[in-house]
């Protein structure tokens, strides 16, 4: 396996994704982070961030996240409509001497500024969420929160990843959102390796297959963690065998693990034998990438 360009020194960017929601991404990400020394965790599920609910960090830094939106100088504008014609996201409408702008639809591409023949468009910042940084239990956590009602998560995810960047000497674990579309791509982009967390059920399998296609397209090496092992059926195992996808770890379905999760307690705290398993797995992945 090739060493990616992000692989500076000996640090690794490892992302945790899934396709299906609720398979245990955050559980794996938090427990693994707590099993390592010198690690930062980036919670990129900015729609529903949960890692902080398990880690309870003391937030030391809060930053607003802005996107650019156009402001039209009505003194210069002659309502020619070029900007609206250009905008692929239908964020701008120009009718008979009236400008209508829908900020939630704007992708901040900046194209309207370029196409305006009267130079009537400038940009200003609009806040769509925040990022927060703090640490707890030996883990540095950065997470983001998309404001409720805002549709676009990727700019917040970018901001979370950016805020995580200065820590070049530490390994990075990225907790990705569920699904397979833009927010997931934005989260896992640039990772050295991705762990796909699934559960051994028909839903888990179907969504795993989609996630596998996405990662293959992105050319990121990956392996699978089967969570709640013992429930459902054996088809996830059969699929992984057939596609030669490594099953890295199985976390059995245990009421104790589920109960600890329900109260927001990382299970490695009560079941310390798992710390070694996560640590060894992390080292194994790192070694495979450095080979």
């Amino acid at each position, binding site marked *: 396996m090739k060493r990616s360009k992000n692989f500076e020194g000996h640090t690794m960017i490892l992302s945790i994704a899934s*396709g*299906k*929601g*609720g*398979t245990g991404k*955050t559980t794996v990400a938090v427990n693994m982070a707590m099993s390592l020394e010198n690690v930062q965790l980036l919670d990129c*599920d900015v*729609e*529903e961030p*949960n890692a902080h*609910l*398990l880690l309870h960090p003391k937030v030391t830094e809060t930053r607003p996240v802005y996107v650019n939106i156009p402001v039209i100088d009505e003194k210069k504008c002659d309502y020619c409509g070029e900007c609206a014609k*250009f905008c*692929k*996201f239908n964020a701008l409408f120009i009718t008979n001497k009236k400008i209508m702008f829908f900020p939630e639809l704007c*992708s*901040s*591409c*900046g*194209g309207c500024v*370029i*196409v305006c023949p009267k130079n009537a468009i400038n940009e200003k910042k609009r806040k769509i969420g925040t990022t927060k940084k703090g640490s707890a239990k030996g883990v540095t956590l950065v997470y983001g929160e*998309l404001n*409720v*009602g*805002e*549709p*676009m*998560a990727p700019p917040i995810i970018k901001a979370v990843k950016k805020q995580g960047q200065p820590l070049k000497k530490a390994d990075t674990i990225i907790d990705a*959102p*569920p*699904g*397979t*579309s*833009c*927010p*997931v*791509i934005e989260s896992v*982009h640039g990772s050295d390796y991705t762990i796909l967390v699934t559960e051994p*059920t*028909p*839903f888990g399998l*179907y*969504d795993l297959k*989609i996630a596998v*296609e*996405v990662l293959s*397209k*992105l050319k990121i090496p990956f392996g699978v963690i089967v969570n709640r092992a013992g*429930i*459902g*059926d054996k088809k996830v195992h059969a699929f992984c065998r057939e596609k030669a996808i490594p099953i890295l770890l199985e976390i059995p379905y245990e009421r104790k693990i*589920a*109960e600890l*999760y*329900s*109260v*927001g307690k990382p299970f490695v705290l009560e079941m310390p034998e798992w710390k070694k398993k996560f640590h060894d797995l992390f080292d194994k992945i790192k070694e495979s990438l450095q080979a």
Partner: protein
Amino acid sequence: MKEIVILSGKGGTGKTTIAASFAVLSRNSVIADCDVDAPDLHILLHPSPIQTQEFKGPELAEIDAEKCVECGLCQEACRFEAITDFRIDPILCEGCGTCTVICPEAAVTMKERVSGEAFISKTKYGLLSHALLSPGGANSGKLVTLVRQNAKEVAEKGNCDLILIDGPPGIGCPVIASVTGADMGVIVTEPTISGIHDMKRVLQLLAHFDVQPLVCINKHDLNLQNTTKIEGFCYKKGIDIIGRVSFDPIVTKAMVFETPIVEYSPKSGVSREISEMWKEILNKV
């Protein structure tokens, strides 16, 4: 015609399990799977497509290497970092078209791109409108809107009075596309700290878009203390809890048999709880 959307914020709380059961229990409704990233409802409902439609997502920029003089202006202008070495990365390209207007050589053009498929299918329980976004495809919100439009069309044709929407997790673009204009949002939550946290954010979203909220506590007996917390919170906010569904491994069994739980085991406690909840919802619509 009424639209009921099933949401959760947090993934894996049981939206699809409950939506599939509602599909069995409902008479004269159209079902819509709006989780176009990771759709699972079809696994339980076994649809046979009667209509397939290409979904054209955002366009894709293309650089004509013969015209390109490698000035780099497009790379500078692209806010999505989709152009490197005078090549477009299709995964990062959002289709905004800025590169086409900045290029002094007119070397960049926008090309149509298919980003998924939408289907109308027959199932035992009525018509299903569903879709599949191409892996890594952009603009899932637009595809969700198409799924809802398709559902409305067939509901009107068939004189159906209800559309049942299985929504995606989260609160972002596909969720917003699933809830805007809906009549009622049923939030399926679970008694975990994250289930509660995520439910609160979806409740805010429903309030923002003026959709009536209802709450269902799934696996309520897994942590009774947290269930009490949810009940207390909803009581204070004046939000109705329309049902509590027990934890039972039979739900996973039904999933393995690819059958909605109310059909797999109609006499089980879980099925009775879901049926009661469905009656409650019909009373409220």
